[in-house]
């Protein structure tokens, strides 16, 4: 038993996640393979509620400010995020660099927190950005901390994506990177998702063994090219991740 009108309205909102631009009713209808009149009703309702806004008062729509609301319930009830936030602020201050937090959802990592740094103006992806876990430092740190069977399941469901020329492009390379991060306690990537940007990530594991997600220090590749600095950042995220895990 479910509400079809609600499902259709959510699908209309999700259509905007598949497209980079503002969309008209017709474009949403085409994307969702729905009739224009059905989409029109969803759009009317979503606009009235503030989930869609007209771009420049025209006929095309973009997600509206009501979209900011539902996530608040998720974030404020998230003990992992709450426990980690002071550590992220501290890491970011100590190293004058960006500190982020991600969780695994299916085969992707999702950003739940970003403590920005002025030097990181190039890296503008906002909260909620998703990337394939296997292609990222934090994703591989999370995978490295999971049981072998869970890890294999996520990897088997993942598809390798060549996001940049530096993205790891074989399962062998990815599995080597995971093994390496198991040895060092943190994962490292350079320019695999964004040119000019590198990061180290460490998984946060609770006292009961639950893998909650990962914390990251990220910045320009120059910073991380220096092996000493990379190790310094790596051990800092590893230690912070361990300290957070104790409370979860």
């Amino acid at each position, binding site marked *: *038993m479910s509400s079809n009108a609600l*499902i259709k309205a959510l699908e209309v909102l999700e259509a905007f996640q598949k497209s980079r631009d503002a969309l008209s009713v017709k474009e949403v209808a085409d994307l969702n393979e729905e009739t224009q009149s059905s989409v029109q009703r969803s759009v009317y309702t979503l606009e009235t509620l*503030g989930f869609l806004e007209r771009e420049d008062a025209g006929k095309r729509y973009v997600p509206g400010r009501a979209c900011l*609301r*539902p996530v608040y319930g*998720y*974030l404020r009830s998230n003990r992992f995020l709450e426990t980690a936030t002071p550590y992220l602020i501290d890491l970011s201050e100590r190293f004058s660099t960006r500190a982020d937090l991600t969780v695994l959802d299916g085969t992707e990592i999702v950003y739940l927190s970003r403590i920005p*740094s*002025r030097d990181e103006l190039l890296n503008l992806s906002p909260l909620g*950005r998703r990337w394939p876990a296997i292609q990222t430092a934090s994703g591989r740190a999370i995978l490295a901390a999971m049981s072998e069977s869970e890890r294999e399941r996520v990897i088997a469901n993942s598809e390798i994506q060549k996001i940049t020329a530096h993205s790891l492009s074989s399962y062998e390379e990815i599995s080597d990177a995971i093994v390496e991060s198991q040895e060092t306690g943190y994962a490292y990537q350079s320019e695999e998702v964004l040119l000019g940007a590198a990061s180290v990530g460490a998984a946060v594991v609770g006292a009961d063994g639950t893998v909650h997600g990962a914390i990251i220090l990220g910045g320009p590749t120059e910073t991380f090219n220096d092996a000493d600095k990379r190790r310094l950042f790596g051990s800092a995220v590893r230690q912070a991740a361990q300290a957070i895990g104790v409370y979860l």
Partner: protein
Amino acid sequence: MDVGLMPKTEPKDDPRFLSSVERGFLVLDALAETTGPMSLTELSKATGLAVPTLQRLTATLVKTGYLEKEPSSKRYRAAVKTVDLLYSYLSRNQFAKRAWPHLVKLREDLGLDVSLSVPFGNSMIYVHRLPGYSGNFENTLPGRRVPIHLSASGRCVLSFLEPSQIRTTLGSLPLSKLTPWSKVDIEEIQSEIAKCRKHGYAVVEQEASPGTVTLAAPVTRASSAIAGVSVHSPTAGGDFQSIAERVLPSVISVSRAISVN
């Protein structure tokens, strides 16, 4: 009430308006109003909807991935997919994107919490919130709503209305208290808004969040205010007058930089 960028509210009795969609979002909103998972009974109390209706709505929201049901307690909580809605707003909204680097710089310059909020119904809602110090966790999150009359940026937005409009707007609001310091007297709030109109910024001390002082300046488009840039400081941080003198020029400069002509 129609303030600046706020979407025009069309009548909900239009035949195109789908009330089950509104009710579904009421469930997610109820979960945003409280910490921790909620049972159907609690959701019913919070939303005014009947339990059978809620069973249908929660089933739909679980199926679509926005809600999770805790197997042990049968309580519901918002799921990680709600973050995708935030992302779709932040990644498409030119204004939110343009504001971000300015806010990052402002936070670094001042070493304090900074935020950007926009009017949303009777509230201001945080678009960006950049924590500068380890304060109250809930204050570090986007999506938090603050009643417009208790919000420094809300008072900035209201200060761009005609005085008669301000009175009508305040008269139509449920002037609720969030803290013992919250101003709920119309005259008092009006005089704060008048100060903001005169000086170009608003200061709110502990009215929305105990222990926090906020200074905000309006972001404008043409002749109306569409948002507010705020700096938040712990009250324990010292004499606010001297903090205000220090932060004001930077806040004003950022609010002007992201204003639209």
